[in-house]
């Protein structure tokens, strides 16, 4: 175990626990401004580490990189195994990026219990990072569940809505219910490994390690069972239509910072591409699974978009727009070809800039009018031109205008889906029209037109901190939109490996476990 650690600096562990340790340190700080500064510093160091990982990451490689492997409970085959590959490494960067922005946003918008808030936020960062970098399924599950604790408090204690207690409970219960099924799925994966270990007389009898689990074949009926069990966990979290009703509540009642994380970090769909599809390729390819998910995807796209169209509250609109976007992501994933997977992965990252960005915009609106309901707005462009401009840019990214990141992802998803099944693809394309309709209609009523009755004509435009957030988002949106190459290179190797795995199935990979690239 020490050899592996010694092979390189344990940068992922640092990434993982820095915010957590930071949160603990914050406990000792009393001054509120000091708390803010410390939290920001911690998150910036974390971002620097994440950027370092991204820069040192070897692109176009399917290898697990920066791996750290320590046995944890050897008897049960549970280990502390961290690594990133082309699928997860971008999420690491995104998590660190969004946390910094959330802290910047919360600087002057969170006014009570600042310390506890920042601690929750940093704890949330650790657990989220944990979900993205864990290769051991039990470790993954631990982080998956731990995430609920800070989330619960964030919604409950700092939410702005009257129903926040209910929303927090609903979110937690929903996720927990799904996790129960997922845990059974994980257990079954372990039992399957055990079955093969006994047959082949290997030393290790149990394992929850993704790489080990990938190396044993799983009978198709088992795969299907496990697939649906894990589906429950991921689909509830994503959320996939029709398991979505916690999302509008949590986003509307919770604080903006929490909404950014919930809408920006697509943990549920990450679960599908990280675990379900590679571990259960035959099940993922099975006719029933694909059809069910495609139909749910189309339903989500149209249902979410039509719902979004009539929402007078911007945050509720965004919740349904998220559901609509997740429909795209699910369809792309289960197109099961290169473009579909690539597009979905890129879109998950994109949503961290566009949908999360729109939540920041919602926050800017909220700071000015103490609501995101349409009735408080109208003609804002005259008062706050900068806000209006960034609102439009980020919104256009979210509806997939070419030149923005949204287009690249959406185009690839639609292309992949169309390749897999043109009927589903053709249905999905309708989302392109609805997306434009719901965003532009809201924008027209809130931002354009004559000044609304309740809009003060002394409203301040974006202040410095808000500008920092808006500009960082805009840069990412245009970068990925105009020159996505670095991001596509990072994903390339892992996506290709996943496509190969889907082609060959579980039986063919009995020979070599996935190569580990230690650094």
């Amino acid at each position: 175990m020490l050899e592996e650690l010694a092979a390189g600096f344990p940068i992922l562990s640092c990434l993982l626990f820095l915010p957590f340790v930071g949160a603990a340190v914050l406990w000792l700080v009393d001054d509120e401004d000091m708390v803010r500064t410390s939290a920001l510093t911690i998150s910036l160091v974390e971002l620097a580490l994440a950027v370092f990982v991204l820069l040192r990451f070897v692109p176009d490689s399917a290898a697990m990189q920066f791996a750290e492997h320590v046995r944890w409970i050897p008897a049960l085959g549970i280990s502390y195994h961290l690594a990133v590959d082309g699928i997860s490494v971008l999420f690491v960067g995104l998590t660190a990026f969004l946390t910094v922005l959330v802290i910047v946003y919360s600087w002057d918008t969170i006014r009570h219990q600042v310390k506890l808030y920042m601690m929750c936020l940093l704890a949330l960062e650790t657990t989220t990072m944990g979900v993205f970098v864990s290769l051991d399924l039990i470790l993954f599950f631990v982080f998956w569940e731990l995430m609920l604790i800070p989330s619960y408090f964030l919604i409950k204690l700092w939410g702005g809505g009257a129903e926040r207690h209910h929303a927090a409970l609903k979110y937690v219960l929903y996720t927990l219910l799904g996790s129960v099924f997922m845990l059974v799925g994980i257990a079954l994966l372990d039992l399957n490994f055990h079955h093969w270990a006994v047959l082949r007389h290997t030393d290790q009898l149990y394992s929850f390690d993704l790489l080990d689990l990938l190396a044993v074949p799983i009978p198709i009926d088992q795969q299907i069972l496990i697939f649906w069990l894990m589906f429950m966990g991921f689909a509830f979290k994503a959320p996939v239509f029709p398991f979505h009703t916690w999302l509008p509540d949590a986003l509307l009642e919770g604080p903006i910072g929490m909404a950014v994380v919930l809408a920006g970090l697509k943990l549920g769909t990450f679960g599908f591409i990280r675990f379900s599809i590679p571990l259960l390729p035959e099940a993922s390819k099975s006719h029933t699974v694909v059809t069910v998910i495609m139909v749910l995807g189309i339903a989500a796209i149209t249902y979410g978009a039509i719902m979004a169209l009539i929402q007078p509250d911007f945050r509720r609109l965004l919740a349904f727009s998220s559901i609509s976007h997740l429909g795209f992501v699910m369809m792309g994933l289960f197109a099961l070809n290169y473009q579909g997977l690539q597009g979905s992965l890129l879109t998950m990252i994109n949503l961290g800039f566009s949908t999360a960005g729109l939540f920041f915009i919602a926050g800017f609106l909220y700071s000015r009018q103490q609501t995101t309901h349409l009735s408080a707005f109208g003609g804002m462009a005259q008062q706050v031109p900068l806000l209006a401009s960034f609102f439009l840019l980020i919104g256009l990214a979210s509806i997939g205008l070419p030149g923005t990141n949204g287009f690249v992802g959406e185009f690839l998803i639609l292309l992949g889906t169309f390749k897999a099944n043109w009927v589903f693809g053709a249905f999905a394309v309708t989302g392109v029209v609805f997306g434009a309709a719901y965003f532009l209609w809201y924008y027209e009523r809130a931002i354009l037109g004559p000044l609304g009755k309740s809009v003060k004509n002394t409203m301040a435009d974006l202040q410095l901190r808000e500008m920092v957030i808006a500009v960082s988002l805009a840069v990412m949106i245009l970068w990925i939109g105009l020159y996505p190459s670095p991001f596509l290179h990072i994903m390339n190797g892992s996506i290709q490996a996943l496509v190969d795995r889907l082609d060959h199935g579980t039986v063919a990979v009995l020979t070599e476990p996935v190569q580990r690239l230690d650094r």
Partner: protein
Amino acid sequence: MFDLTDLLIKLIPVFPLLAVIANGLLGSRYSHEVAHRLAWGSVGLSFLCVIGVFADVLRTGATHEVVAYQWIFGGDLTINLAYLVDPLTCVWLLVVTGIGFLIHVYSVGYMHGEAGFTRFFTYMNLFMVSMLLLVMGNNYAVLFIGWEGVGLCSYLLIGYYYDKVSAAKAASKAFVVNRIGDAGFLLAIFLIFINFKTLDYTKVFAQLGQLSPDMATAIALCLLVGAVGKSAQLPLYTWLPDAMEGPTPVSALIHAATMVTAGVYMIVRNHAIFDLSPIAMQTVAIVGGCTALFAATIGLVQTDIKRVLAYSTVSQLGYMFLACGIGAYTAAVFHVMTHAFFKALLFLSAGSVIHALSGEQDIRKMGGLSKKIPWTYRLFLIGTIAIAGIPPLAGFWSKDEIMGHAFVNHQFLFYGLAAIGAFLTSFYMFRLTYLTFYGASRMDHHTEEHVHESPMVMVGPLMALGVLSVFGGLILGFPPEHGWLHGFLAPVAGAAGGHETSVATTLLLMGTATGIALVGWGLAHFLYSLSPSTADNWSAKFQGAYTTLLNKYYVDELYDFLFVEPTKRLGEFLDWFDRTVIDGLVNGVAQMAEWGSAGSTWIEKYVVYAGLNVIGFGNHLAARQGRKLQSGMVHHYAAIIVAGLFLLALVVQLIVQK
């Protein structure tokens, strides 16, 4: 290997892009003077580059393909941001940068003193970039970037006066309606990729031999949906008349001369696919013919000077589609060019009128302007004669060619549609001229006092367009079917239709066309100059027809009733459904879970932990961690998990063992 032409090609879109960046980011720091110089200067530089490229293409006849950089890649897909410059692209480049330059210069005068002056030019330059990408792309993805990019700029510029409700609504409408077309275009792109495994034009066209006729029809029809949206054809034309909410130079550049002809560009670019499908060709011709006539009838009675021109644009675009549909691609491109000349001229002169009248657009409140603004009047008249199709002005040659092509290929239905359309065009355009410039003044006193001729910076570009409107047709397309343009475009648009016509037929057709135009003029002269009361009598007599036309056949209302309102109602129903049914179910389940948890706590304590350490460990750990932070709640949930887990594990184990 260094190639000057390749460098020039790469530079063409770069200049306006730099102006966008400068004016967009720093525009508020410097004066309007600097901003407009950057704006028109950059377009001028692009125009010079285009001239250089054009000279090279003219001299060598070579086709240039230049890769700027790799945009999207992965698996079997590679999309480069790359350009293809051939004669077809050259023609569009000349029109876009040439007319674009003139309109930019004109705008300096027209937009003078506007608060959003710099913003206006930023959007205009962004439009230039998008439009250039649209016509220069060497593959469908770059075409699509430009395609939606021009749509965005159209949105921004229609909504330029964003505090006006009507402008804001018109902008959203334009974008959304265009997106319907774009969705069709996307489908076409995907079909093309599936069939050819590439999105590059040259590679696609090289493999056309293996395309089945049905697939060709599918692709062509999907492309047509896109073209119909962008070029405002039936049934997606409704956004264009509303788009007149934008400043007049925008109407001239985007909604007349360039963007709306993108659909024609797309069809001509893909004519090899359309040629494979008679059904698609027939559809294009029907769409074009019907639109030409339909929009012209609405144009007959409109009272807003810009709206008349807008319907006229829809109608003229119909002619271009009609030309494509009957295979007269060169004639279509020819009409695009002449139309760009005279319609830009008409819009800009109309802008000059509006400018002179301090913003008045209603022709019922004009009249007798010919003496007060003589230059504008003369130039507007040139535009009118050109669009009406009276020789030797530009519009005559291109329109005659389209009609002639229909006639000699025995497409008499389309010839008829086009002929009636031509009559109506001549009539409503002269009606517009008479009402605006002749007769007694109907202006209010205040406006009348302030009427003034526009400054040179506006009249200058008008004169240039006037010259093009007079001579453009002769230069480009004389003699008919064998003009310079036909030779230049022959490699890309295919030779004109097979029927060689006798000189007598040609002359007869030209005579007929001229006659039709003159009759239209005559009727307008009679109704709006000689006997104005007759016009009112007629509108009173045919009240039903008149009201229907005035209300544009109630198409907007119909679409609202059929699509917009039902979608909103569906949304409201779904919202109820979501809150009541889906969430109701969820709350029910949650209720049960809470009841169950009390029981499960007991099970957890005495039964589960011992048996399920294996599986529950992580979860247990989670619960323990959580407890440190808060006792009670998390413990409670953990109990639910473990209890549920236990039950599930039992069930699963039964299934597995079976």
